[in-house]
């Protein structure tokens, strides 16, 4: 329900922003992130850094414990909690995507990187996964019970495959279009959920447990800095403008409040 609200809200905002910015492509309406019309990879020398902390605004909300309705001997070994808001030191907000909306050329993705998502103990890890378009994702199932990987794509083809206990590692096909974050679910264990953002360039970061992020190797210039957070929404309608100087460092913090339902 909550994710629906998020999508609907961001959708409304997205429409406004996208028409204003006339970004390319036909699928923006359902997306929560903003992608450049095109992106050219090149070598970046003397890039700058944008970093900062995302903080949750207000009192820490009550964290809901998830009800383990099934496979308790495996899934119930540790308590599971709702991960839509995870706070660290000083109310630092984990799992926020911070990114450059309008960069059209810059560094390539690091080569040889592996992209994985674990389902250990019936919980997806990471909860928010950045996945470059054209890259395969390795789903890990060390539980020796059945999961299914159900990805709620729109711009990309439907995906829902079973991963039984005998498929400890299952690679899933790469997608072609930037999209997301799209929700990932396991229908067998209804509480399992995560997000994948299919990204076209490397200037995306996910905040760590204390709400910290870093975007480095940024070519000098002025950019729109955006964020997305599952429970707090996006700033697509009002991104922050940041100017990066050669070799310089910019600090940009955000304070996010929970979206009203």
């Amino acid at each position: 329900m909550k994710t629906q609200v998020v999508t609907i809200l961001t959708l409304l905002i997205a429409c406004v922003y996208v028409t204003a910015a006339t970004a390319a492509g036909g699928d923006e309406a359902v997306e929560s992130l903003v992608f450049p019309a095109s992106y050219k990879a090149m070598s970046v020398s003397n890039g700058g850094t944008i970093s900062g902390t995302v903080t949750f605004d207000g009192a820490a909300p009550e964290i809901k414990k998830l009800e383990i309705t099934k496979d308790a001997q495996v899934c119930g070994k540790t308590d599971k909690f709702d991960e839509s808001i995870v706070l660290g030191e000083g109310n630092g907000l984990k799992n926020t995507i911070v990114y450059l909306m309008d960069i059209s050329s810059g560094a390539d993705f690091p080569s040889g990187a592996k992209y994985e998502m674990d389902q250990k103990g019936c919980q997806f890890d990471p909860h928010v996964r950045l996945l470059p378009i054209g890259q395969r994702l390795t789903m890990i199932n060390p539980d020796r019970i059945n999961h299914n990987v159900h990805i709620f794509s729109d711009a990309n083809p439907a995906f829902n495959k079973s991963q039984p206990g005998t498929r400890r590692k299952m690679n899933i096909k790469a997608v072609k279009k930037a999209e997301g974050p799209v929700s990932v679910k396991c229908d067998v264990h209804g509480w399992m959920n995560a997000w994948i953002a299919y990204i076209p360039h490397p200037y995306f970061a996910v905040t760590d447990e204390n709400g910290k992020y870093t975007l480095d190797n940024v070519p000098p210039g002025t950019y729109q800095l955006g964020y997305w957070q599952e429970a707090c929404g996006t700033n697509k309608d009002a991104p922050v403008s940041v100017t990066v100087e050669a070799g310089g460092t910019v600090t940009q913090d955000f304070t996010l409040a929970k979206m009203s339902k």
Partner: protein
Amino acid sequence: MEKQSYKNTLLIVIGNLILLLAVFSITAFAQGKTAPAASEEGKALYDDKCAHCHGIEGAGDGSAAENLLPRPRDFTRGLYKIRSTESGQLPTDQDLFDIISNGMPGSSMPAWSEILSEGEQWQLVAHIKAFYDGFEGASPRLIDVSGKVPYSEESIAQGKEFYTNLGCVDCHGVIGRGDGTSAPDLADEWGFRSWPANLWEQWNYRGGSTTEDIFKRFIGGIAGSPMPSFISSFRLGLTDEESARMNDLELKMDGDGLSDTEEEEYAALEEKLFMFEDIMLNVEEGVELTPEEQTKLDTALEPILEKSWHLANYVKSLGPEERPPAAVGDKVLRSQYRAEGLPGMNDEAWNEIQEVSYFPLVGQIVIDPRQFNPSIDSVTAKSFYNDNEIVFLFTWDDRTKTLPQTDDETGETVEDALAIQFPVKISEGPTDPKPYFIYGDSRPVYLWSWKVAEPSTVIEMNAKGIGTATVQADQAPIQAEGVYKDGQYQLWIKRSLTTEDRNDVQFAPGVFIPIAFSAWDGSNGDVKTKRAISTWYTFVLDPVPSNKRFVYPPLVALISVGLLFGLRSSVRRRQNT
């Protein structure tokens, strides 16, 4: 017992099926026809025939959509359940044509083959495709159905193992009645409630119930629904021995850990698996394979597809293709005289009755609150009697056992329950009117009310119309026992043939006694009049054996058929007002 009668039908069905399939598989390769260009005619037809469910813009939001579950398809996302194509692929034009033609049993999607010409249906295919850009230039990959494994006991036995090991049980339940432990929490991609198919009710399969149909569903998945594709469930390219070895090593890995040589062995097996998987992912990503790669993949897939056919054969073996005939005419429920004593709930004696009587249920949509999407679609019954008592064994499928709980939506206390209804006074003949089939009218009804919270109790009630049901002050001793197992309730009830109470029904051999049912599925929000109901049926206590072959055919047939039509038109009339 029930299973046995299914099996008989099944053997015949299967015999026919194998014949049919032999004929059909010759044509199975063809992708079928393709749709013409989208046209004004197509749009006009769509707006007239389909838009009130699927919406003018195809978003599944027509004016009638709200009360339907499953919801009418949203055509704007290109997600189609019933495809002859692989996971993640669009359907073929022929798939869309077939769905329009045949409809989707078990849902409100009608079959159009008798209403629209073939040409018109093709125009609709073109119109529907136009709602989603992705169809442009797409050439979806077909599921290879060429390696069909013939139906045999051996194949079924193998398939049954895969059914358990691959996790079908999680959703469809141990024996397939749609009662798996994950079933209560499922939703489709639009956020609407989704129930796993009851695999025993093959007449409700959306996409048909031939072995091919079943095979395609779990190879390709049912897009938009929780049901995944199982194509990657086996270890591609590994022999059964290698796969078993991998299992052992993984067990050990999680236990004491692997030795260096075992570590290497595992890595080698994994590498082999990934090499084949890589070829398959290339196909999924649209990369052209070299002929060698293609051969490699085909060879690796062969044993996997074979196993999948075993699984399809197993699922096929679960139930009859056709919905059983209703308990009218020569199928009417007959209570059999049994001098040896009346059987208890789990008594072998029940097997003496070969054919169970089948009572179809529909949603109660006449009186508020209504049930437009009933989850219980039938009750079955068997019965014996002797000189003093009568005993019944009722069964009905329900995917969840719901003890009294608060319904999230309505705040009402809901629970699973069954009521069996008789008129207090049995009519003299076809012209003597019966009480209104929902809780009677000026002519009262007598009810046996059973609720899951007290499974060994049946309460006697009377009603003279909706909202008037009252518990009898004076309860006759009725024995009852209800159990829930594998997605099915069984309820055993025993009462004396006659009682002193003028408000009870009295059973006597040779008399046609009207009987009707109401069933509540708590997890479906059923409460009060929101429930599944049947019309009046009749049953009869077979005469005492001296002439056991005595039949009453024409009269019973007449009464029952008349009743069925009566209900239909009365429901329709009320719906219209």
